[in-house]
């Protein structure tokens, strides 16, 4: 039995019929067509699937689409406004915070959350804040610098 869900994704409301077992990440990728959110592990460890649901960074691979009903979702595609990159996106570009790019959307969403909670984090706080996100390419140092860059930019 399919269920109807109503969600707002990147500011746009929509309504879909989904199977109750459909994961939020598959809903976003396969039904809505927003493929920027990636799947890296299916056990909610790697964080490649991180999106903001009602303002909180969540792993969309371990949430059902029906659980997001009535919710407001922001994905990587919705982060830039009027063609202008979000400071965290800009930081990743400026500081070479990515290589293969697969973890990047989730990393950026996690970075946004870190700065929402603490606009002036220390390096250690950023590293702790990235606890839920894995990157195999960068060794994280440039990711930390990218988030520091964004913090600086958002404060001024």
């Amino acid at each position, binding site marked *: 039995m399919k269920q109807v869900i109503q969600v707002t994704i990147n500011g746009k409301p929509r309504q879909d019929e989904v199977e109750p077992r459909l994961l939020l990440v598959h809903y976003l990728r396969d039904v809505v*067509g927003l493929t920027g959110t990636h799947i890296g592990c299916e056990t909610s460890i790697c964080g490649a699937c991180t999106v903001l649901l009602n303002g909180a960074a969540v792993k969309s691979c371990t949430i059902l689409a029906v659980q997001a009903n009535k919710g407001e979702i922001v994905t990587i595609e919705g*982060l830039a406004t009027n063609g202008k990159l979000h400071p965290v996106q800009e930081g990743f570009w400026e500081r070479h915070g990515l290589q293969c790019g697969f*973890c990047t959307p989730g990393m*950026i969403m996690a970075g946004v959350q870190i700065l929402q909670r603490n606009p002036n984090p220390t390096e250690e706080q950023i590293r702790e804040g990235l*606890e839920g996100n*894995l990157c*195999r*390419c960068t060794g*994280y140092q440039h990711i930390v610098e990218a988030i520091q860059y964004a913090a600086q930019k958002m404060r001024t």
Partner: protein
Amino acid sequence: MATKLIGERIKRKEDPRLITGTASYVDDIKLPNVHHVAFLRSIYGHAKINKIDVSEARKLPGVVAVLTHDDIKGVLKPMPCVGGVPDMHTPEHYPLSGGKVRFVGEAIAAVVANDRYVARDALDLINVDYEPLPVVVDMEKALEKGAPLLYEEYGENRGFTWKISGGDIDKAFQEADRVVKLRLVNQRVAPIPLETRAVLAQYQDRGVEGELTVWTSTQIPHGIRTSIAGMLNLPEHRVRVIAPEVGGGFGCKVDFYGEEVLIPYLAMKLKVPVKWVEGRRENIQATDHGRDQINYIEAAVKNDGTVVGLRVKVLADMGAYYQLLSPVIPTLTGLMMCGPYKISNVSMEVLGVFTNKMATDAYRGAGRPEATYLLERTMDAIAAELNLDPVEVRMKNFIQPNEFPYKTATGLVYDSGNYQAALQKALDHVGYTKLREEQKKLREQGQYVGIGISSYVEICAFGPSAATATGGWESATVRIEPTGKVTVLTGSSPHGQGQETTFAQIVADGLGLTMEDITVQHGDTAVVQYGIGTFGSRATAVGGTAVYLALQKVKEKATKFAAHMLKVDSKGLVFRDGKIFPENNPEKSVTLTEVALAAYLAKDLPPDTEPGLVATAFYEPKNFTFPFGTHIAVVDIDPETGQIKFRRYVAVDDCGNIINMLTVHGQVHGGIAQGLGQALYEEVVYDENGQLLTGSFMDYCIPKAHHLPKFELDYTVTPTNVNPLGVKGVGEAGTIGSTPAVVNAVIDALAHLGVRNIDMPLKPEKIWKTIKEHAPKKGPIIVA
């Protein structure tokens, strides 16, 4: 050139699509009516399959096909291994196995359904009658008499024996003052690109001359195309392989997997697009593993620390089958067994061993991290035994800077090097002398501080074709378009390294253009001329050189046009700020756009000149390159918990000339993270029944941000003369240099307790146990 781009920190051209979520990896490509594949994989490490019943699975609505070995027998050929060694047993294996399975994760059935959830549902409806067989997962046990055999027909689990030697090893041992022995385990690890493997195939059947398009997450699209054409008996020109955005590879995607032929086969057979995206659990079960060697080392040394001979026996775990390059990987350990040292007498015997595990194959460094690990651990063991400083032992044995090109006892010719300079620079960064004094003081206060040094040389830029399994050249095309913009086609197939940027830097500098004027395309066999791919730190040194050579050719032609248009001699013309002009008369200029347009309109061609502005080069390297460096780790160990904390991590690398400082930093950072991961956290573990105990990220630990220290990077620059760019390659350096630095630091921290070795990964529990076990007694402790 107004601004020189080579050598600068240039932001990547790749990034805008990757930070906005608009890049397309294989699973992001949506085709109408696509069907999804799920694989049933063996749950036993070793078993006979008496029967597979797929009838219930076939009945599930949405399922369109279920295949087993019987369906592909006689249709698909066995999977190839091109990295063979002489006189080896070569077992056959297929995309779907039948009769017998030999490791957990081996594919035995494939379900195709119109929905990915339904395909997985159907797996539960397949009944397999397994007859479990005795399992062997330990290499040493596998070689014992009476061990369970993976292949009865061979009568042994030894796949091959490969030997290398140089000098007079017996004489060296006779002349030695003493022999230092070590047994080291270089444990099995998993490459873990964040994007797992994925394949999508579409066959456009027109009755005649059908065309197959395959999207696959690979480092070698052209090789995959040739292989698929061969396996499916298709003419190669009607097969197109695309490596779209690739989410990391680290060597495990320099392979040709069964899924890469089975998915295209299914698309042709079923006449619908077919997609398979590997799950992470599958990825840890059935994508190449790396390392997995046991090294038995004997070093013949003089009392002053001079190493006169090195004899090593290597057991190399092949797993249950060879993948594309499996056997050749440990031979690289043999070739590099001299490292940066002048060891004139060497011998290595490698035994490839079959066990009930996934195959090992290339993983970042591929055989060279193992060489550096065994050498650098041995150097520290020699220092400890002779009571010498580890720096002194290294300095005493290094090849001297004036001895290059240097021929090693294993027959390689090192291009250039200054190992002393890199080591000294790293020592200066950590303040070595003072640090040793501090360590002594802290030891007296009961604090455990360790300093670990690792000096490495690696073999890169694979490589001369004569010495490379699949050809070692690379190709490039530089095409100046009619509007003066430039498209570069490269046979390299980057998957995160950033060659769209670095190659654009080379071309922009050469033509006097900006980064925005250049686009680099790769990874699509319908777009790019034949190429080899990205692995073995070869993309810039070999692929970049091909770009450079194509650039020179196209510049020569553009110069002819410019000279013709300006009515000047073509000698002395320069490219700068989008213009071409005589160096001594900048006022008399023509823009590259005007030249390009003239070349394509072709109204007034220079004598003996064809229209167009395109050049292609195939570059065959005359030698490998040999980057080097020294990494130093400084750690504190908490004796109460066994926890390791980094005080410093300093890396001084020398990759020859640097094209982009930003991406070189990135490569070194990432490399260190993986090498450090092996030293401290990572290990693929199978139990004695062949069950994989580390099958997800719950159990297989790749480092997180808070696991890693801040890396301090520096460089020395010793260009190579192997290629005109003077670049050596840097993709694997961090992985190679870091692992022994970290392990040496931990062992050094415990050296005063008499600890001489602990095998990786150095988990706190293991360290704590070592400390506790040692406390009441004296003498060396070995914990395996």
